[in-house]
């Protein structure tokens, strides 16, 4: 595949900032592909997922790790999952997933649909409690938990990927409003 001369622009232009104990950074370079499970295809899908990505199928609201391509499988809907991974062909991640799953799922590239922002550090939950209505306490939202929710009128997917670390994904077109909302939450709490 030829390397295109078209310049790719990250949704948040590579944003990276630390305020106090909280670090905010755009995550780029990861591919995101949705995989919908055909009716009656649950078993085939589970087998393909294990075979192709070395992952088990997470329940809706949970995620699992695969042992290939740094993959993480997010249970987004009862019959739809997101696969977050390092795509061998960044321009055609859906094809990569299709190849890995052998057609056991309907796949759709979502890489550019979402701006991805990691928020991490000691004060992270205090900042998020200003915009996120979900209970992010350890007992309610342990590591690996994922949810789609709404923050400041924006759709956001939130994945807890560490003790004090969350990956936030929000639609690309409103990425600047999204970044502003998260950044302001951190700033409002800073000394």
């Amino acid at each position, binding site marked *: 595949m030829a390397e295109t001369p078209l310049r790719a622009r990250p949704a948040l232009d590579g944003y990276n900032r630390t305020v106090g104990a909280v670090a905010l950074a755009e995550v780029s370079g990861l591919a995101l592909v949705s995989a919908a499970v055909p009716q009656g295809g649950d078993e085939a899908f589970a087998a393909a997922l294990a075979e192709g990505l070395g992952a088990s199928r997470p*329940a*809706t609201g949970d995620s699992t790790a695969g042992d290939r391509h740094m993959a993480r499988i997010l249970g987004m*809907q*009862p019959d*739809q999952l997101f696969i977050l991974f390092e795509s061998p062909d960044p321009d055609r991640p859906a094809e990569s997933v299709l190849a890995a799953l052998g057609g056991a799922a309907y796949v759709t590239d979502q890489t550019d649909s979402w701006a991805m922002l990691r928020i991490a550090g000691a004060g992270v939950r205090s900042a998020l409690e200003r915009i996120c209505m979900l209970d992010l306490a350890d007992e309610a939202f342990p590591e690996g938990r994922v*949810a789609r*929710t*709404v923050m400041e009128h924006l759709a956001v997917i939130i994945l807890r990927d560490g003790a004090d670390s969350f990956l936030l994904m929000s639609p690309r077109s409103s990425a600047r409003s999204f970044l502003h909302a998260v950044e302001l939450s951190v700033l409002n709490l800073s000394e």
Partner: protein
Amino acid sequence: MIIDHPLLGPRDAQEFAILGDASLIDRPDWQAEDAAKLFHDYLHLRDNPAGEHRELWFHEQGDRSWLVVTRSTLTHEVLKVELARDVAIARGRDR
């Protein structure tokens, strides 16, 4: 309000869009003799109960499931939450 989602646990109702009476699952047969009347009643007439009400909620800012929520319109107490898809299948809807 809190909707206790059957798959995800309690979620703020603000994540949902509400359609209305769950009888909207029971879309009539378009080839029925009296299809015009059936569709009129289906789309327009409501029991509108003061009490237990089965209604359709869409978890738009969530897992995109349509839910059938059984809720009291007098107290707002939520009595039961089911996946609408399961309800539809149980009511004989298929293809």
